[in-house]
């Protein structure tokens, strides 16, 4: 019934093989087709950009700038999204007032607001934080609200029949019921947060990985662009993995979460 679990050694070794093959093909293609390095850098040139960036330390201020704006915006946007999601699910009046606008805002591409936010908040980190918060907000807001609303009505009936108060029903039934949805929203938010930060940096910034990419594009320093892209990917992977791990830990009763995580089952 259950598939044999793939050992950790294989799960690390096999993707490494893929990586080596890709790198070899990449190097070979450059040598064979004589691709100029302002179009496609060789893996060694990317490595040397990484060396300048992280060993000699030129990228660290930019990396930290992007990470700081992502973290601050993510925490702010997600907290607000959960709070508003709860309000939307629990207050029919609030829903009546705001629902049409939520639908309208949801279908608008949020990154289109970036220039406006720069105008309002300037070139500094504030505009990046607000942009990140804005793009993280919607999926989690909707997910929280849906999660709370789809709590099993029979569980709620049981609680009511035993005389439970509204706050007890909320804390013991609705909020845990929504936990899976909330974590799904948090996962989507990680990727969106990076997009938000980079877009804001593209529009106007003197710092950040997005700024590095934009500046390097002007000089056709493709190896620097590659290095910055890899840094962004690393941030994204680290964030996603952290949340996946948290999801399985917190929502331990959720089968889907437990099986998609790499941790062995509780039994």
């Amino acid at each position, binding site marked *: 019934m259950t598939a044999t679990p793939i050992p950790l050694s294989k799960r690390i070794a096999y993707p490494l093989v893929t990586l080596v093959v890709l790198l070899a093909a990449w190097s070979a293609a450059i040598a064979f087709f004589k691709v100029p390095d302002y179009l496609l850098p060789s893996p060694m040139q990317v490595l040397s950009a990484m060396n300048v960036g992280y060993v000699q330390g030129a990228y660290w201020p930019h990396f930290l700038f992007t990470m700081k704006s992502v973290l601050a915006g993510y925490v702010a946007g997600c907290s607000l999204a959960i709070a508003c999601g709860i309000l939307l699910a629990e207050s029919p009046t609030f829903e009546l007032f705001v629902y049409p606008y939520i639908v309208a805002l949801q279908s608008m591409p949020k990154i289109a607001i970036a220039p406006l936010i720069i105008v309002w908040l300037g070139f500094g980190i504030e505009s990046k934080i607000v942009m990140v918060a804005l793009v993280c907000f919607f999926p989690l807001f909707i997910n929280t609200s849906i999660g709370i609303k789809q709590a099993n009505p029979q569980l709620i009936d049981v609680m009511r*029949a035993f005389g*439970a108060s509204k706050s007890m029903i909320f804390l013991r039934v609705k909020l845990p019921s929504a936990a899976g949805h909330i974590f799904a929203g948090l996962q989507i938010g990680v990727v969106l947060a990076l997009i938000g930060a980079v877009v804001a940096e593209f529009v106007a910034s003197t710092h950040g990985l997005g700024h590095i990419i934009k500046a390097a594009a002007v000089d056709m320093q493709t190896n620097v662009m590659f290095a910055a892209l890899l840094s962004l990917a690393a941030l994204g992977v680290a964030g996603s993995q952290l949340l996946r791990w948290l999801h399985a830990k917190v929502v*331990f009763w959720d089968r889907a979460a437990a099986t998609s995580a790499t941790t062995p089952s509780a*039994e």
Partner: protein
Amino acid sequence: MTENPGGAVLSAQGLSLVYQTSRGPVTALQDLDMALAPGEFLSVLGPSGCGKSTLLKLAAGLIAPTRGRILLEGQAVEGPTGRVGIVFQQPSLLPWSTVIENVLIPIRALGRDLAAGRKRALALLKLVGLAEFASHYPGELSGGMQQRVAIARGLVHEPRILFLDEPFAALDAMTREHMTGELQRIWLATGCSVAFITHSIPEAVFLSDRIIVMSSRPGRVVREVTVDLPRPRNIATMAEARFNRHCAELRELFKDLVTFE
């Protein structure tokens, strides 16, 4: 304000419930009269859609009747009071809480003393045969075990009445038969009144002091049967002529009640 006809713990007088649906009003219950005596095991037997579960929700105060009233120990039910115990068809346990925490829900909801509640919860878990599973999560238990946790939860706040809404319907046949015997044992040990909703004739005859037979759409009482088999009843009871006579009588009744249109 309180009146208590015949000392009943629960009584319904002219109880009607009409649902408003998009296809017009649907009468779920019509002029239902019934009473549950202290310590009595009463079964409500009826075909699907006869309003059995509606009756339970009314008694628990989860919904309000359209006409008539329902009295709990002489007081009109006007909302959930937590004074009754309920077991639904599905165990309806909180998957994120341990077995003992699930059993303690009524204690917390009613703001009762937690230490005393914990003691009683453990005693009840012992009674339902799950003492060593107190710190497990519901997902680690079988369906029958989960339903026994639900029974312990239904009894932990010492209600005068325990409502069971087809509690064994989701279980396999063998577990179901075993649980029927278990329920009799638990009921005899606690001495509370039980209102047991079912559509299984042998189950109702085996367990009950009295059976109310309901018709469907609109739901109303069409017959009352008193089962005078001695207790405790066991497997041998099911082979007795009196047991089978009761079953046959009820089946005969259902032949006219259930129409397969």
